[in-house]
C-alpha cells in the first residue's frame, strides 16, 4: 500500500519482519499503553486526575512502531495526547500516573499533568498543549543534534527526530513554517502525522484541504512523504525503519501520513455525536493490538495462554503503578516558586530534577522543597 501511495520517489522497503521475541515485546508495550489509558480514564472519573485527559486507545501501533524503528537517543516530541509515546519511550508507568495525579513523584513533579509527559533520560521532549507548537520545537531538536554532531563535535549528523502531530494540527501556520525550515536547513526530522480522522469533533476532510491527499502538504515544500497504515504495527515499523534510515543518511526531512483512529472521545467530555457507532465498530474491528495478537498466534509464536498471562501481567503492573502513584505526596506549596527560573532570586528558589531522575546522593542536596511534600 505505502509504495503505491508514496508521493515522491519510491523507497524500496527491504526491512525484514522482526523476530517473534521483538514482536512479543511490542505486544507487551501496546498492552501496557492500553491498560494505562483504561486506568487513566478510571482515575479521571474518580477525580484522582483532573484537567484535560486525551487518551491514546487505538493509536498504540503508531507510537510503539515508530519508536521501535528509532534509536533510544533519537529525540521524540509530540502534542498533548502523549501517554503512549512516553511509555513506548520507556517512562515508568508509575511515574506517569504520579504526574497524572499531580504528585511530586511525577515526571514533571505534578506541575505538567497529562499533557506534559517529559522524560529526558528517554529522549522524550514532551508533551505540548498548544496545537502545532511542538513542530517548531521539533525542528529545533533536529537542528540541535545536527549542530552538535557537525559543528561542535566536527563529525557527521547521526540522530533523527520524530515529531508527532495530529491531522488537525496541519492547519496551524507554525507547522508549515517548521516544515519549510526543515527543508531549507536539511534537518533530520520525520513529521509523523497521526491521522486519527478527527480534530475534536471535526472530521479531517471538513477543515483540512489537501486535494484529498494529506501528503500534498509536504509536496508544497518539496518534502518527501508517504502514507502508511497505522493500525498494523509491522507495517508501521518496516516503513518507519526505512524512512528513518534514509533520513539519518540524507539529513533531509520526511513527512508520514499515518492512518489510525481515535477509539475514544477527544477528551473525557466528548459525547462523540459527530460520528456513527457503526464507524467506531468498524475501526475497533481493526484494533492494532488484536491484529498483532492474531499474527503471533498464527505464527504460533505465542499461545492463547501466553497471551492471557501477558495481559494479566501487564494489568498487574499497571495496578501496582496506580497504587504506588496514589501514595505519592502532593507537591509542597514551596514547589509553586520552584522551577520558574534556573537561578534563585526574589521568591524564586531555583530548579532541580524530578525525584525519579536523581541519583539518591544529590537528592537532599538539590531539592529540599521538592522532598518535603505534605
Amino acid at each position, binding site marked *: 500500500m505505502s509504495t503505491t501511495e508514496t508521493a515522491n520517489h519510491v523507497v524500496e522497503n527491504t526491512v525484514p519482519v522482526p523476530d517473534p521475541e521483538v514482536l512479543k515485546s511490542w505486544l507487551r508495550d501496546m498492552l501496557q499503553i492500553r491498560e494505562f489509558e483504561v486506568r487513566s480514564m478510571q482515575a479521571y472519573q474518580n477525580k484522582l486526575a483532573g484537567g484535560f485527559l486525551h487518551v491514546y486507545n487505538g493509536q498504540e501501533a503508531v507510537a510503539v512502531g515508530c519508536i521501535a524503528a528509532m534509536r533510544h537517543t533519537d529525540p521524540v516530541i509530540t502534542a498533548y495526547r502523549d501517554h503512549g509515546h512516553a511509555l513506548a519511550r520507556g517512562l515508568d508507568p508509575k511515574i506517569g500516573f504520579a504526574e497524572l495525579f499531580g504528585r511530586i513523584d511525577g515526571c*514533571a513533579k505534578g506541575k505538567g499533568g497529562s499533557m506534559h509527559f517529559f522524560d529526558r533520560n528517554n529522549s522524550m521532549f514532551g508533551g505540548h498543549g498548544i496545537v502545532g507548537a511542538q513542530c517548531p520545537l521539533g525542528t529545533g531538536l533536529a537542528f540541535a543534534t545536527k549542530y552538535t554532531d557537525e559543528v561542535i563535535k566536527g563529525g557527521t549528523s547521526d540522530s533523527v527526530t520524530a515529531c508527532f502531530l495530529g491531522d488537525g494540527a496541519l492547519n496551524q*501556520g507554525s507547522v508549515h513554517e517548521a516544515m519549510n525550515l526543515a527543508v531549507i536547513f536539511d534537518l533530520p526530522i520525520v513529521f509523523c502525522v497521526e491521522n486519527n480522522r478527527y480534530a475534536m469533533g471535526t472530521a479531517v476532510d471538513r*477543515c483540512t484541504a489537501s486535494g484529498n491527499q494529506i501528503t500534498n502538504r509536504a509536496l508544497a515544500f518539496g518534502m518527501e512523504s508517504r502514507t502508511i497504515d497505522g493500525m498494523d504495527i509491522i507495517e508501521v515499523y518496516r516503513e518507519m525503519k526505512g524512512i528513518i534510515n534514509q533520513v539519518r543518511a540524507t539529513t533531509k526531512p520526511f513527512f508520514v501520513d499515518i492512518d489510525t483512529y481515535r477509539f475514544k472521545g477527544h477528551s473525557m467530555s466528548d459525547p462523540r455525536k459527530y460520528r456513527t457507532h457503526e464507524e467506531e465498530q468498524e475501526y475497533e474491528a481493526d484494533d492494532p493490538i488484536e491484529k498483532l495478537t492474531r499474527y503471533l498466534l498464527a505464527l504460533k509464536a505465542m499461545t492463547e495462554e501466553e497471551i492471557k498471562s501477558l495481559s494479566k501481567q501487564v494489568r498487574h503492573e499497571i495496578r501496582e503503578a496506580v497504587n504506588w502513584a496514589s501514595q505519592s505526596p*502532593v507537591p509542597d506549596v514551596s514547589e*509553586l516558586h520552584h522551577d520558574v527560573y534556573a537561578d534563585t532570586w526574589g521568591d524564586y528558589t531555583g530548579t532541580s530534577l524530578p525525584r525519579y531522575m536523581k541519583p539518591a546522593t544529590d537528592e537532599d542536596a538539590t531539592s529540599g522543597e521538592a522532598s518535603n511534600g505534605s
Partner: protein
Amino acid sequence: MAREIEFREALREAMSEEMRADPRVYLIGEEVADYNGAYKVSKGMLEEFGPRRIIDTPISESGFAGLGIGSTMLGLRPIVEFMSWSFSLVAADQILNNAPKMLYMSGGQFGCPIVFRGNDGAGGQLGSTHSWCVESLYANVPGLKMIIPSNPHDAKGLLKSAIRDDNPVFCLESERLLSIKGDVPEGDYVVPIGKATIHREGTDCTLVGFGRTVYFCEQAADQLAREGISCEILDMRSIRPLDMEAIIRSVKKTNYCVVVDQSWSFASIGSEVAAEVHAACFDDLDNHVHRVHNDDVPAPYSHDLEQEMLPNARKICEAVRSVTYNA
C-alpha cells in the same frame, strides 16, 4: 421579565438576539457549530441560524481571526470565538495589530466592529499553556475595548453592547463561571461598556475585582464581616475603558483599597488601578493600595498548587487586614 439562567445561556441569548436583529452578525470559531461549542455556549445556534452564519473553522486562530477582521472592512460584524484566550497567542498579530489599529492606519476609512470572545484564566488544572489571563497583556493596547463579566446578567448585557460597538471588543469569560446561574431579563437590554458597579456596599475597605475574582472577594468579605471589617466590593466589569471614577468614589469613602486581579502582578491591571488610585486619592488613602494577584508563576497542574496560586479569599483577607491595621 427576569428568570434564572446559566452564564453560558446568557452569552448565547446575547449572540442570538443580536443575530436575529442584524444579518451582518455571524459567529465563527472552532467547534462552534456542529459540536455546539467546546463549552456549549453556542448550543443550538447552528440549528437556528444555519451553517452560513454559525461557522466551524480549522485550528487556525490567526487565519480565522484575520478573516473576521477583514470582513469588517466590508461592513460585517463578526463574533470570533476563541475556544480559550490561551489559544489567541498564535493570533496575537491579527488581534493586536490589525483589529485595534485599522481605523488609525487608514485615517478613519475602515473601522473594525468585531467581538473576540472565549474562556480566560485558570480553568481546573489545565496547566500553564491553557490557563492564560490575557487581560493584563492585551489591555495595554489602545484601539480595543475589553469587558470581563462576572455574572449572567452582565454577561448578556455587556456582550450585546460589544456586538453593537463599532470598535473591536475583547470579551473574556471564565470557564469556572459558565455554569453559575443568575437572574437575567428576557429580551433586549444592554449593560454599557465602561461602567463599573458596586457589587456589595461596605464602609471600611474597597475591594476592586473583576470576573471570577469578584467571588473570591465575596468569600473574603463574608469572613472579614465576621471580624468586624465591612468591605465594599466593586466589580470593574469593563477593563478598557476603565471606570476610575467609580473606583475613586468608593476609595474616597473607605480610605482603603485592595485590588484583586487574577492575572500576574507585573505591569498588570492591578498595577494600573493601584497607580491611578494613588494618583487620584493621594490625600484620602490611609494606607497604600494593596494588590492580590495570581502568584507570579506559570499555572501548575496539581490541584492544591493551583488553588494556592489563585488570588483566593485567604490572600484577600490577609491583604485587607494588613492594609486596614491602622484603621
